[in-house]
């Protein structure tokens, strides 16, 4: 029984760290433990956006576990894999040791290669610049900004910086690149270049999951995630604003 709860907690922890909604984390843990024979009154799970609590009564005594978690980056492929696993468990396709083995495999699913992520950010930036009305040159500058921004995000901001300073400096970084490009004569609308360039910083995961958690009645986690999204949004805007202000003071900001 201990092992069943341990497995359920493991699955829940992976889900939580990969960016799943609270509802899904709880539901998956319940499903796994129910299928392997731990009935409702012998266990309790409590999941928050940044931690997970589990307790249960087993024949050996009591089981308890508290795990901290922090979403660093969205890993939806892991959410998909565990969702699949949990369906197949209910269809009776897995024994407990097999589930543990599969969880171990899912834990180690590699991230998309860094270069691919950087290119995605670059193409994404160019695309968003076009969506907001930018022309080819604006999109090209956004492409360059998005490219270098993500090199910075993957190598400096994500591993070494807090969310606030990472996004603030990210916003500054993009603005400086776009100003330099404009100074070199590339691009027409500075604003459209910047809007495209910063787009890969936009906190889509926390925003959408926060809404979903609140819709499910998980108010604490939903509020935490929405707050996270707001902080990131404000940090980016402040980063852009700082560069503009400095620029205005030094050069009078004619180009703005």
């Amino acid at each position: 029984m201990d092992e069943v709860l341990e497995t359920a907690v493991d699955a829940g922890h992976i889900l939580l760290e990969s960016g799943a909604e609270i509802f899904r984390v709880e539901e998956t843990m319940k499903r796994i433990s129910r299928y392997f024979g731990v009935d409702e009154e012998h266990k309790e799970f409590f999941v928050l956006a940044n931690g997970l609590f589990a307790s249960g009564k087993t024949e050996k005594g009591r089981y308890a576990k508290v795990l901290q978690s922090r979403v660093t980056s969205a890993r939806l492929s892991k959410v998909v894999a565990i969702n699949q696993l949990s369906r197949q468990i209910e269809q009776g396709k897995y024994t407990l040791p097999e589930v543990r083995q599969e969880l171990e495999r899912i834990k180690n699913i590699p991230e998309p290669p860094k270069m691919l992520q950087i290119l995605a950010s670059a193409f994404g930036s160019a695309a968003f610049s076009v969506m907001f009305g930018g022309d080819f040159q604006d999109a090209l500058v956004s492409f360059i900004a998005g490219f270098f921004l993500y090199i910075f995000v993957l190598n400096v901001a994500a591993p070494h910086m807090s969310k606030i300073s990472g996004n603030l400096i990210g916003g500054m970084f993009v603005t400086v690149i776009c100003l330099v490009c404009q100074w070199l004569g590339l691009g027409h609308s500075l604003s459209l270049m910047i809007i495209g360039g910063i787009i890969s910083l936009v906190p889509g995961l926390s925003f959408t999951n926060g809404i979903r958690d609140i819709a499910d009645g998980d108010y604490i986690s939903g509020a935490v995630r929405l707050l996270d999204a707001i902080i990131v949004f404000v940090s980016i805007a402040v980063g852009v604003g700082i560069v503009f202000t400095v620029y205005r003071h030094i050069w009078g900001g004619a180009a703005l």
Partner: protein
Amino acid sequence: MTLLVHFIAAAVGTVAFALIFDVPPKYYALCAVIGGGGFLLIDVLMGLGLSQTEATFIGTMFVALASRVSAVWRKCPVTVFLIAGIIPLVPGGRVYWTAYYLVMRDMSQAFENGFLAIRVAIAIVLGIVLVLEIPNRLFHWKTTGKRN
């Protein structure tokens, strides 16, 4: 022509985000259609005279609905489509203009853009919440399965 360009750009943008969020590549095509379609719908509705808030509300409902149908069809979590598909609708541009006008000391423009950003965000919240409230069995008219 502009509509087509916008649709393609939004589809490319959505797939770019799908990659950054580590969505499995087999779902990219659907993500592209959902994200591109949502943005296109907003474009068309605003062309017909709806405000950005109203158009975003309807666009969000489309994205959320399409995501749920796709999730049932492909038997995977709705998150896979919803998160990337919603990004083209997020009022990032308005947040930028708010910051821009704040720095330029043009308070009335800053307020206008800031409020619009908040209204659009609320429209997105409502759109998602309403569609997610639709009972699950309506999406399982073919299969009889568990909630996605």
